[in-house]
C-alpha cells in the first residue's frame, strides 16, 4: 500500500519527482501559454475597461498562488514539526521565495491595472494592504531561513514563525477591513449561482489559474530537489574532510 509518507524518504522523493517535475513543468507551460494567448488575443475587450482588463489573467492567478503558497508552507511546517520529515521542511523553504514573488507579481500587476482604472497606482485598500503585509511576512520568513546556519534549528524556528505568522496574517486581514473600506472589487470568481463573468473570460482565467498552480508545484519541486542535492553535497564534503 503506497502511502503519502513514503515521499518523506529523500531517495523515493527524488526518484518520483525526477519524472514528475518535467511533466508538471511542461503542463504548466502549456496551460499558461494557451491561457494567456487565448485571453489576450481571442477574448473580446470589456465594454468599460477596454483591453486593460486582460491583466486579470496574470493578476488573479498570481494572487491566488500567493495565498496558497503560504497555506502550503503552513502545512509543510506542521508536517515538519509533528513528524520531522526533512523533505517537508525543505519544501517549505523552497516555497518561501516563490510565494513572495507571486505576491509581488500580484501587487505590481494590480498597480498597473489600478492606474488607468482607479486613476492611482496604489490605495490603502484592505486587499492591497493585506497583500503588502503578506509580502512582509514572506520577507521575514525568508530572512529567518537565511540567518540561521544549523539547518534543523532553522527549520524549527521558521516553522514556528510560519504558524504564528499565519494567525497574525489573518488577524491583519480583518484589521485592514476594519481600518478602511476598500476600492477593490469583490471576488472575481464565485461558485454561487448567477456569477457575473462570461465563459470567454472564465475559460482562459481558469486555464491560467491551473497553469499557475502547476507552475508553483513545478517550482517547489525544483527548489526542493536543489535543497536535497545541496544537503547531499554538504554531507559528502563533510565525510571527505573527516576521512582526508
Amino acid at each position, binding site marked *: 500500500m503506497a502511502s503519502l509518507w513514503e515521499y518523506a524518504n529523500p531517495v523515493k522523493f527524488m526518484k518520483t519527482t525526477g519524472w514528475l517535475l518535467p511533466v508538471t513543468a511542461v503542463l504548466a507551460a502549456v496551460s499558461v501559454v494557451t491561457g494567456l494567448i487565448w485571453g489576450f488575443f481571442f477574448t473580446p475587450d470589456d465594454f468599460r475597461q477596454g483591453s486593460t482588463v486582460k491583466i486579470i489573467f496574470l493578476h488573479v492567478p498570481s494572487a491566488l498562488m500567493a495565498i496558497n503558497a503560504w497555506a502550503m508552507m503552513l502545512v509543510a511546517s506542521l508536517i515538519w514539526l509533528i513528524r520531522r520529515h526533512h523533505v517537508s521542511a525543505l519544501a517549505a523553504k523552497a516555497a518561501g521565495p516563490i510565494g513572495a514573488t507571486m505576491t509581488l507579481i500580484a501587487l505590481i500587476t494590480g498597480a498597473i491595472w489600478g492606474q488607468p482604472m482607479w486613476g492611482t497606482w496604489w490605495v490603502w485598500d484592505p486587499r492591497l494592504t493585506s497583500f503588502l503585509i503578506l509580502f512582509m*511576512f514572506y*520577507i521575514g520568513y525568508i530572512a*529567518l531561513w537565511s540567518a540561521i546556519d544549523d539547518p534543523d534549528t532553522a527549520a524549527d524556528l521558521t516553522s514556528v514563525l510560519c504558524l504564528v505568522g499565519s494567525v497574525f496574517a489573518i488577524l491583519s486581514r480583518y*484589521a485592514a477591513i476594519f481600518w478602511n473600506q476598500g476600492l477593490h472589487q469583490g471576488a472575481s470568481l464565485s461558485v454561487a449561482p448567477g456569477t457575473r463573468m462570461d465563459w470567454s473570460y472564465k475559460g482562459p482565467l481558469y486555464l491560467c489559474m491551473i497553469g499557475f498552480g502547476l507552475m508553483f508545484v513545478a517550482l517547489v519541486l525544483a527548489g526542493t530537489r536543489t535543497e536535497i542535492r545541496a544537503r547531499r553535497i554538504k554531507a559528502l564534503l563533510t565525510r571527505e574532510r573527516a576521512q582526508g
Partner: protein
Amino acid sequence: MIALLIRDLRLAFRAGGGFGLGLGFFLILAVLVPLGVGPDPTTLGIIAPGILWVGALLACLLSLDRLFALDFEDGSLDLLATSPIPLEGVVAIKALAHWLTTCLPLALAAPVLGILLNLPGPAYAALILSLLLGTPALSIIGAFGAALTVGLKRGGLLLSLLVLPLYVPTLVFGAQTVTRAAQGLDISTPLLLLSGITTGSVALLPFAAAFALRINLR
C-alpha cells in the same frame, strides 16, 4: 517567579539597563514629527493618534533585543531553563518586566506628548486606556520575536523585520481607538478587539516563545 521579576526590574533600572531609552526615543519622535510636518495645529491634531501609537510601538521595539540576549550570552538563560519554573513562565515574566520598564512609562508619558501634538481633548482617556490595554501584546509578541532570534549575531535588525508585521493588528486597533475618540465616536469596538488581541497573545504566545527558546538552547 517574583524573584525573577524583581531581578529583571532591578537590572533594567540600574545604570546601563537601558531604562528610559524608549521613553527618550518616544519624546524625540514626538518633537521631530511637527518639525517635519509643519506646526499647523489642525494637521497635527489629525495625525497625532497615529503618530503616538507608531511612536510607542517603535520605542517598544527598541529594547526588545535585550530581552533574552544578555541572559543568553552569560548563560543565565540555561539556568533558568533548568530551573523549576516552566520556561513559559520565564518568558511571561520577562515580557512583564519589559512591559513594566518600557511600555508602562510610554503609556503614562503619551498624554504629555499628546499636548505637544495638539491631540483633541476627548482622546486623552482613550489614548492612555488603549496603550495600557494594547502594549502588553506588543511586549509578548516582541518576546516571541526575541526568542526566535536570540542565538543570532546581529539579530536586532532581523527581530524588527519579524516583529513589525506581527504588530499590524495591534497598531490598527490601538490607533483606531484613539482616532475614533478624537472624532467623538464610540470606541468600544476597537477597544474590545484590542483587548482580545492582547489577551489572546498573552495566553498563547508564551508557549510559542518557550518552544523557540528551547530550540535555540539545544
